[in-house]
């Protein structure tokens, strides 16, 4: 980048992406980026900036996962990756941050309510509603420890539970009921093990949100810079292409038959094993001048062996399966939902 270009961009790169710097999301996000072909280079672990060498012009900023939403909202970055839970909790009502890809398929967790095991009478959210009323009649309030007051409050209000006090907490809140500063907790859990070990149990209908990593954007900032928009588009396309490819194997096989039509009709006898839109069939040119055809298909991962058997039944040999890197649609979904068609020609 020349000095002049640098100046036009107010001193930062044309596209800034905020990634989580802490916790489980740090490693999993870097590995996700790598698998999308967007390997992040971070000069050293103490620097909170990096780059994506495969796409020059992209600047990576590391921030605590809870701050990512705010950074994108306030305009410190055009794109951001963080947990959907943190986006929904921290984003402003009239937010400038839009969710571009809601599910990046990692960082799964649930935001749940849990009560002490010893509350034998409380098994569901309606028990909790009842208990809140009972407390109120006795002049007490249910105290719930949580780090996401906003999500929890609106969940409880929507279900008619109004009488409670939230106790702000940020770490190790599983200990709150035992320590005595809360009666129950609402917390994130991936496996439920920590809850069980602290003698807490989850409630029926007590799951407030199922969350995972997601990609967010500041559309106003993107719209203001053609360069940022086109870089963002590259990133979104690669992520989407990777996510779409992930469930599939590419399977190729050689089949000896008299015509291409014969291959395709035998393969198509099992439409569920015949690829996304049917097999691609091509003649194989070999020295013996026999009638060999090559069949190429995309197969769901769980159906691989079934598909291999089916191809064998069709007379196939040399069946090869390989991991697909990307699968692109006619158009980028995230872009269509957010930007409409107008940017389709902008590249």
């Amino acid at each position: 980048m020349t000095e002049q270009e640098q100046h036009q961009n107010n001193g930062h790169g044309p596209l800034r992406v905020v990634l989580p710097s802490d916790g489980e999301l740090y490693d999993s996000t870097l590995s996700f980026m790598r698998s999308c072909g967007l390997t992040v280079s971070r000069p050293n672990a103490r620097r909170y900036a990096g780059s994506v060498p495969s796409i020059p012009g992209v600047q990576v900023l590391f921030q605590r996962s809870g701050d990512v939403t705010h950074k994108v909202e306030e305009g410190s970055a055009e794109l951001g990756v963080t947990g959907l839970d943190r986006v929904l909790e921290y984003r402003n009502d009239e937010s400038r941050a839009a969710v571009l890809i809601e599910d990046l398929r990692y960082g799964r967790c649930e935001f749940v309510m849990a009560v002490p095991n010893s509350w034998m009478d409380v098994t569901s959210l309606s028990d909790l509603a009842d208990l809140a009323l009972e407390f109120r009649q006795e002049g007490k309030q249910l105290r719930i420890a949580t780090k996401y007051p906003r999500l929890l409050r609106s969940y409880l209000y929507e279900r008619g539970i109004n009488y409670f006090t939230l106790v702000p907490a940020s770490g190790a809140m599983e200990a709150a009921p035992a320590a005595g500063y809360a009666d129950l907790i609402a917390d994130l859990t991936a496996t439920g093990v920590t809850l069980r070990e602290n003698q807490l149990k989850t409630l029926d209908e007590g799951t407030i949100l199922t969350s995972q990593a997601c990609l967010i954007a500041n559309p106003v900032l993107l719209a203001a810079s053609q360069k940022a928009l086109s870089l963002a588009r590259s990133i979104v396309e690669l992520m989407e292409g990777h996510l779409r490819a992930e469930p599939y194997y590419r399977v190729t096989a050689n089949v000896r038959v008299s015509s291409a039509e014969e291959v395709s009709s035998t393969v198509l006898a099992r439409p569920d094993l015949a690829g996304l839109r049917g097999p691609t069939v091509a003649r194989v040119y070999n020295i013996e001048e026999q009638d060999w055809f090559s069949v190429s298909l995309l197969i769901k991962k769980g159906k691989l062996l079934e598909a291999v058997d089916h191809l064998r039944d069709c007379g196939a040999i040399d069946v090869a399966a390989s991991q697909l890197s990307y699968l692109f649609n006619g158009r980028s979904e995230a872009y269509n939902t957010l930007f409409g068609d107008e940017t389709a020609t902008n590249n």
Partner: protein
Amino acid sequence: MTFSQLIDMNRQPAQSTNTVSRLTVSRIRGMHDQAEDSLRHKLDLQDRVCQLLGGHDYRLLETPVLEPTELFLRKSGGELASQLYSFTDAGSNAVSLRPEFTSPIMRHYLENAASISLPARWQYCGPVFRFDVSHPEASGQFTQVGGELIGSSQIAADVELLNLAMAVPAELGLDGWSLRLADLDILNSLLDSVGISERARSFIIQNMPLLREGHSAVPKFLEEGRHLHLVGGVNGSLDQEDAALRQAIDGLNDAQARSVLLGLLQWNSADQLGQRTPEDVVKRLLSKIRGTDNEDKLRQGLELASDLAVINGEPPLALEAVKKTLAAAGANQDAADRLSKIIGLMPNGPNAKGRITLDFGLVRGLAYYNGVIFEVSHPDWPGNLGGGGRYDTLSRALGGVNAVPALGFAYNLDALIALGAS
């Protein structure tokens, strides 16, 4: 959402949004600026309502815009909680912008009761604040005018307040409005005849608007009541764990069952109960397993309530239907007689004629009302223009030693203006 919609939402021209510092600060949704002409118009109308109420001895009272959150939570049983502009101030106090005037005025009375002789009459006018995501058009700041009459349980007080409530839109030259009226004491007499628990009673009262469908709605609410463990016994639905516990205490009397469950709890892990005692847990567990009401009583209560909820029409006919319903249930008729007298004493002049309907599916959604309640609406306005009623139990809820009979009404002045009040 398309990009262009997002831009519109942000109300910023794209070229000026390069950096945050250039974004302008705009009004909060639901809050409005008012320029001189419309403000003068509003002040003028405000003044006329003030004259009207002042002529009936209602004294002006201004209360703080900011009050302790607890004041409003106690009043509504928490129901208003989600609509409060509520925050913690720098001194760590939970405070809220007032969403209405009734509880601040009752608080004022309770704080100064020694120097106030009853009955007391107050009028007010000022901004109130409600945050209601489900009704964005009714969310934000608006101006409320109204009156409160504290310290009289007489029929004359009900009549006075209803007359004033009807005089306000008439004074402002508004036409086309109507007033729907109900009486919660009538519903309570009806439910008294069945003899059900307080919890089942509030469950039924809450659902009155939906019980307007009649008996066909009853099975749905019976199911919900089971789900809420309002009914137990053989018909109640229990999850597996509870079913196993029920088996364990089968055939025992309550005292025996309690000691079995208590033993089970202590053996389980009773060191982590929060503010609850083992006895609390067992007591609730037992009533959950065995149920407090039996299902037949809840059904009977729901059916009677729906008989009442469907009554909707001109006062004389509706009152006749109410009396029939009460008689069929063997319920006390006093509340119905009282309402008849109130209606009989209300003037039937050109301002009132044909404007009042009785609608017993009306409950006004706030926990503290009893006796007469009403709402005023207009076909051109989506929500209510105003409403009110009797709230004899509010003083107790706010910490008063004695129940103080009281009634009040309030109008959304901005809505009256929008409808062409002049």
